[in-house]
């Protein structure tokens, strides 16, 4: 029992991971049973008395670079055969090879990780230290269009899985040297590079420090999904509401940095987080600043309204039809009564089942390949819905209420926020079926209580509405002013420099 407890107990990370001095034998021992570990012996300029060994990981190192910049000079440079033995290592380090970097290493740990990252290690016979040359492959997906945040009027590039490509996309837009990028390694097994970005003099240093502190505290096996970071970094992982807004679009990411927020990238995840997250961030789109301010404001108000619709319509329908029919306009009531007469199920059951069916159809559509997925959606939405109404299994009013709520939910720019609303929609529908409008009102109060209790990196989640008078406000969150009048960064994110234009 105690052995099991000991095995299950948290165990500290070993630093350095590969202890001890470097040697070729040690390296071979570390990479034993690694089929992709390769080494190549080379006679320097054909001199069998001078032998070098080049080690690399196949697939991580780029063959052309290895051949042209390392192996070819080793085999063909006559100086390597004639230089005194004592100066050979210096010659290799200082310029005989054509790599853009060369580093002498004496410890095993950095060499092992350099090989994993695509470098090659050059050992000379009779020496245990080595030279490390970066010859990493750059195979990666090219920068494409942001599929989740399409742009009608704006940049069409999006983040990719390569961390350095993503930071370069940002650096190309924000050329100021004040843009700082600091790297952390997260994950015991994945050793994923995670970059923190901020603009010095604008972002809050405390937020940067807090983010870095939390990143350093993460001790997990690997960063394979966004949740591997989000759920460890947020203040309240129990809340379904997202606290770390993310984007696929470099322009939105840059806008976040310019607002005084702190950016976060993880290698292998084609998106960037902008922190701290406040509720208004989840209602903004990349197009808000591209459209005319009146159109953008109208669309913003529509999105907020849609959030209320998707959240409240099923619950309101249940409450009104089941508990407070007198609040329904008479002609609508008569039509509901007529439609409801031949339906055998209660309104509560109908709405909850339809909400569930809606989720099932959506999930089925998402999990299948696109052409089949859209067919399933059409089949599920139109054919099954119509058939259910014709067969008097559900009343059309319920179908309309659930469909309106579902479609309104799709207007949310953030899928995570939309999912949280969907969960709460179920809860509010259940509360409405227990206590009518009273239950619904209690549910709404609980939702506001829950949201008011959330914080993201020390900033209240409802900051745009609840900061009070002590914190200087930014600009209205429900609509957008003309850009020349948006002179202030939001005080809630604790920016060091509030003014953003002359």
């Amino acid at each position, binding site marked *: 029992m105690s052995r099991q407890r000991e095995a299950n107990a948290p165990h500290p990370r070993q630093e350095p991971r590969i202890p001890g001095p470097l040697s070729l034998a040690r390296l071979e021992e570390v990479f034993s049973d690694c089929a992709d570990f390769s080494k190549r012996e080379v006679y320097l300029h054909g001199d069998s008395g001078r032998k070098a060994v080049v080690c690399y990981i196949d697939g991580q190192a780029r063959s052309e670079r290895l051949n042209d910049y390392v192996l070819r000079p080793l085999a063909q440079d006559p100086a390597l055969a004639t230089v005194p033995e004592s100066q050979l290592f210096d010659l290799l380090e200082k310029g005989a090879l054509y790599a853009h970097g060369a580093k002498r290493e004496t410890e095993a740990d950095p060499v092992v990780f350099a090989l994993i990252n695509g470098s090659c290690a050059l050992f000379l016979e009779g020496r245990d230290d080595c030279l490390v040359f970066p010859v990493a492959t750059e195979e990666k997906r090219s920068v494409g269009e942001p599929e989740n945040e399409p742009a009608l009027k704006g940049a069409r590039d999006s983040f990719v899985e390569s961390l350095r490509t993503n930071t370069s996309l940002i650096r190309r837009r924000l050329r100021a040297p004040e843009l700082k990028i600091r790297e952390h390694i997260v994950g015991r097994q994945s050793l994923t590079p995670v970059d923190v970005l901020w603009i010095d003099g604008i972002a809050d240093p405390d937020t940067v420090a807090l983010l870095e502190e939390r990143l350093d505290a993460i001790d997990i096996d690997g960063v394979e999904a966004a949740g591997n970071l989000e759920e460890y970094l947020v203040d309240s992982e129990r809340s379904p509401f997202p606290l770390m807004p993310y984007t696929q679009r470099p322009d939105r990411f840059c806008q976040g940095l310019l607002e005084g927020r702190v950016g976060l990238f993880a290698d292998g995840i084609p998106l960037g987080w902008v922190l701290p997250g406040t509720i208004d961030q989840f209602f903004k789109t990349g197009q808000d600043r591209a459209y005319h301010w009146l159109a953008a404001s109208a669309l913003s108000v529509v999105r907020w309204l849609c959030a209320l619709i998707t959240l409240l319509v099923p619950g309101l329908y249940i409450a009104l039809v089941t508990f407070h029919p007198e609040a329904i306009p008479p002609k609508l*009531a008569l039509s*509901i*009564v007529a*439609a*409801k*007469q*031949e339906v055998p199920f209660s309104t509560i059951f109908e709405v909850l089942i339809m909400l569930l069916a809606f989720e099932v159809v959506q999930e089925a559509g998402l999990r299948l390949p696109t052409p089949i997925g859209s067919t399933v959606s059409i089949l599920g939405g139109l054919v099954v819905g119509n058939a259910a109404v014709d067969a*008097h299994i559900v009343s059309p009013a319920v179908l309309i209420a659930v469909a309106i709520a579902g479609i309104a939910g799709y207007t949310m720019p953030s899928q995570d926020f939309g999912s949280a609303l969907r969960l709460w929609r179920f809860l509010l529908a259940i509360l409405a079926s227990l*206590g009518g409008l009273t239950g619904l009102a209690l549910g709404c109060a*609980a939702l506001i209580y829950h949201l008011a209790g959330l914080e993201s990196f020390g900033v209240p989640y409802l900051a745009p509405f609840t900061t009070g008078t002590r914190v200087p406000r930014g600009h209205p969150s429900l609509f957008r002013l003309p850009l020349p009048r948006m002179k202030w960064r939001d005080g809630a994110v604790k920016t060091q420099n509030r003014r953003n234009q002359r």
Partner: protein
Amino acid sequence: MKRGWMAPLALSLLLTGCSGLPAAREMGDMALLRTMGIDAAANGVAVTGSTGPRAKGLQAEDEPALILSADRESLSGACLAMQGQSDSYVFFGYVDQLLLGQELAERGVQPVLDYFSRDAELGLGAQLWLVRGAAAREAVSSGGDKGVDSRLETLQTDSDMGIASITRTAGEVYTDLLELGSAFVPALSPAGDETAVLTERGYGVLNGDRLVGFLDGEAAKGLELLAGGPSADVLEAELAQNRVSVKVVSASTKSELEVQGGVLSGLKLTCRVEARLSEYQRHPDEAAVQALKTGLEQRERLRLEAALERLQELGTDCTGLGARAGIARPALWQRVQRDWADRFAELPVELQVQVTVHK
């Protein structure tokens, strides 16, 4: 942790049944009453309710209106008895039209209005009508399978558009009874004509809470002018080689208390009528327009005089002329308010009619 338990605990307490949460009821099982008629019966009241045409299923044809009636000692007893007569749950929350029989109105409408104001489903939002010369049950039943609610709704819509006579909700009438001590209510007759089952028959006047009389014809038109809501009215005039029609579009009456030597000596009414030319063969000149104005002034004056004469005869100021005038003279109004009805019946009224004809 403690806080985490509080919410479920509070919810459990609410759901024990003593929380006052409303009860659930399926709408598919409901019969929605749209019209209610209440009459005086030998031992209490006779209540009749009609649902209007109903549909079973969206594509189904209309079913005939469900008409329920019960005679009991009290309104609540009658409503409860009506519940038992239907297969469905009878829901009173959609009663938009309330018809009171003449006999019941003569006995007093206060108990009915009281009941409506206290009942959670009914409320005072329903349109109130007096059924003249017949029982409300007869009026409710006169619509047959189609019910009378659509006819009454049409009258209400026409009134809102200024085409038909003024309609009043039960709440408005009740407020007038409590504040002015009198009120006017539109009256209907179930006799009908070739086009409709219920026809307008002037206004009934309630004094205290009892029906004391009716205003018909020109007097009813005059009452509408006093109340500031004239129904559509057209004056046709034959001018020199030009037939002209003038349509009255709005009117408002301002009242003032006249005082002589600190004593109330009379009531001055100024009625401003707005009209516009609706038809003409040739555009009338200034002289012709002046002639039209004069003709319209004379006609409206006659109507106002007829209405005032009848109201003074009944001893009620149901349009609130005194109360409106009292706003400008609060001290005087405070002195005369108590016996205003008696004073109004004998007060000399100076009438001024100002007509504006828009071309």
